[in-house]
């Protein structure tokens, strides 16, 4: 009796250690995540605000392009002034300029207002004018191409392989290859896109079409794998029930298998699109890294995407771009969070029906 209680105590203790280890890992993960997010928010939040000056007496304090917009009462200040006024960085200003800024401050002719340009402007060489609009539009066009190509092809492939294809050596080989492709580094797909779409098909280089097709290649195997997993999870008894009632295989597929598999399929598709949205490396390879100051108007016009724009900004030395980089990351994270929220919504929606 005493030995068994001793061993029981030991087992309980082991469980407690294990729980503690698990709890500590969660705590550590939250700490890291919170640290990263906090840092980005701390650095990026000021990007949503800009410094403006209402006096034309000191044109050298204003943005070089904005200083001629004489019709506006408030003019955007240069990024050096912006950095000093918002954060106190003075190393790129002369003592005289600092004096002038302080004077404007006492006269109430300098202010910080919401930076609408950050959302409505495209990329610029000047940090105070640069915005994410071009990148957002480019990302939208690119992702649209990715969705249009990868979704029907991926789902169709999975449906055929899972429901109709004969189970033989060839299909087995194809399945194994698709599984492997899902794990191939994304940059390899960039090389494939470069050769296939630009060198071979001769499509225009930094366009949303090429970017979207390349990301579509990347997403395809992931969508196939996710869709097949969703189809496999449909209970066999459900198919038998329908077949036993005299439903044709196509009716079984559309009436029972697809509705049951849809939440899983949509989850896979949206998550792979989210991955495509945040992808940078393959787009650098196919030349979407260029500086593009206007938003794309169609699928063939030169375009950049949000993550590539973040990458470009992160290489700029100006303090203003450091701020913009973090600000744009915040927007990208927001879009990704919305996509993931969509996944949760779809899952809930369909689980209610069960």
């Amino acid at each position: 009796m005493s030995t068994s209680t001793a061993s029981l105590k030991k087992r309980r203790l082991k469980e407690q250690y294990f729980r503690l280890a698990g709890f500590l890992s969660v705590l550590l993960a939250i700490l890291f995540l919170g640290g990263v997010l906090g840092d980005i928010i701390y650095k990026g939040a000021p990007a949503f605000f800009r410094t403006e000056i209402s006096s034309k007496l000191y044109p050298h304090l204003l943005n070089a392009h904005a200083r001629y917009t004489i019709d506006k009462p408030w003019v955007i200040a240069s990024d050096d002034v912006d950095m000093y006024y918002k954060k106190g960085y003075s190393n790129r200003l002369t003592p005289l300029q600092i004096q002038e800024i302080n004077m404007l401050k006492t006269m109430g002719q300098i202010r910080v207002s919401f930076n609408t340009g950050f959302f409505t402007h495209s990329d610029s060489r000047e940090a105070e004018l640069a915005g994410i609009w071009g990148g957002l539009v480019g990302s939208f066009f690119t992702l649209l191409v990715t969705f249009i190509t990868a979704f029907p092809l991926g789902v169709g492939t999975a449906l055929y392989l899972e429901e109709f294809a004969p189970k033989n050596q060839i299909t087995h080989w194809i399945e194994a290859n698709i599984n492997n492709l899902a794990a191939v580094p994304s940059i390899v797909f960039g090389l494939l896109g470069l050769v296939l779409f630009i060198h071979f098909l001769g499509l225009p280089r930094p366009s949303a079409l090429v970017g979207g097709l390349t990301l579509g290649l990347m997403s395809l195997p992931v969508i196939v794998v996710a869709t097949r997993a969703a189809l496999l999870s449909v209970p066999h008894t459900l198919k038998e029930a329908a077949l036993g009632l005299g439903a044709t295989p196509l009716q079984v597929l559309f009436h029972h298998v697809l509705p049951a598999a849809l939440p899983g399929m949509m989850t896979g598709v949206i998550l792979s699109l989210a991955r495509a949205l945040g992808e940078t490396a393959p787009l650098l390879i196919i030349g979407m890294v260029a500086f593009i100051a206007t938003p794309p108007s169609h699928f063939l016009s030169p375009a950049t995407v949000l993550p590539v724009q973040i990458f470009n900004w992160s290489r700029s030395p100006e303090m203003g771009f450091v701020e913009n980089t973090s600000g744009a990351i915040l927007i990208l994270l927001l879009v990704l969070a919305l996509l993931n929220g969509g996944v949760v919504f779809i899952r809930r929606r369909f689980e209610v029906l069960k």
Partner: protein
Amino acid sequence: MRATAKIDVKHLSLFYGDKQALFDVSLKIPSFQTTALIGPSGCGKSSFLRCLNRMNDIVSNVHIEGKVLLDKEDIYISSIDVVELRTRVGMVFQKPNPFPRSIYENVAYGPRIHSLFKNKSDLDEIVELSLKRSALWDEIKDRLHQPATRLSGGQQQRLCIARAIAVNPEVILMDEPCSALDPIATAKVEELIDELREKFTLIIVTHNLQQAARVSQQTAFFHSGYLVEAGETGALFTMPQDERTQGYITGRYG
């Protein structure tokens, strides 16, 4: 067999790849009676049942020799449409498998895909009649549009029976329909089987010998892929002709 044979199986052999599961089985299934298929696990009784509505077709590598005649017509010749066959020969499975839809939609599904009704009130009638025949109507008539998955196991199985009879089949195959049910639900399903015999020809696979004795008029005993013995249920249980049958029904093995 006094009654006319609804299904006449002649020299049926079944192969899963190289493995033979049934050996030269010949059996006549009489109309409007319940035929029980008994035997130890893996004896081929479920495989035999699935030959009768060609549910084995969906398993790859299946190969069949011999004939299965339904009303004197071979169901394995190419001119037979499997879809039509399965509306004539319905099936109830071991585990209750309602669709994840409402109770009403479960029963209405068969009539819907086969367009067995003219208008909504026709369909309502079919659903009500099927649920009444499966003795479920009184329990669920107020919640027809609730998810079928919320019903108890026994209710789900009776719903599956209602779903099967909604397309008005001639034969109903039941593959151990009570093995996942508690004794009370089992008793209800057995009672139901006895009533259904008036309208349908039933074939039931069961592990439960008492159940076979209670519900069936004819019993067939399978052993390692062979049909050992078949005959009138009372006679088979009281005076088995074969030693193996005797061993099984007296509980010596199986």
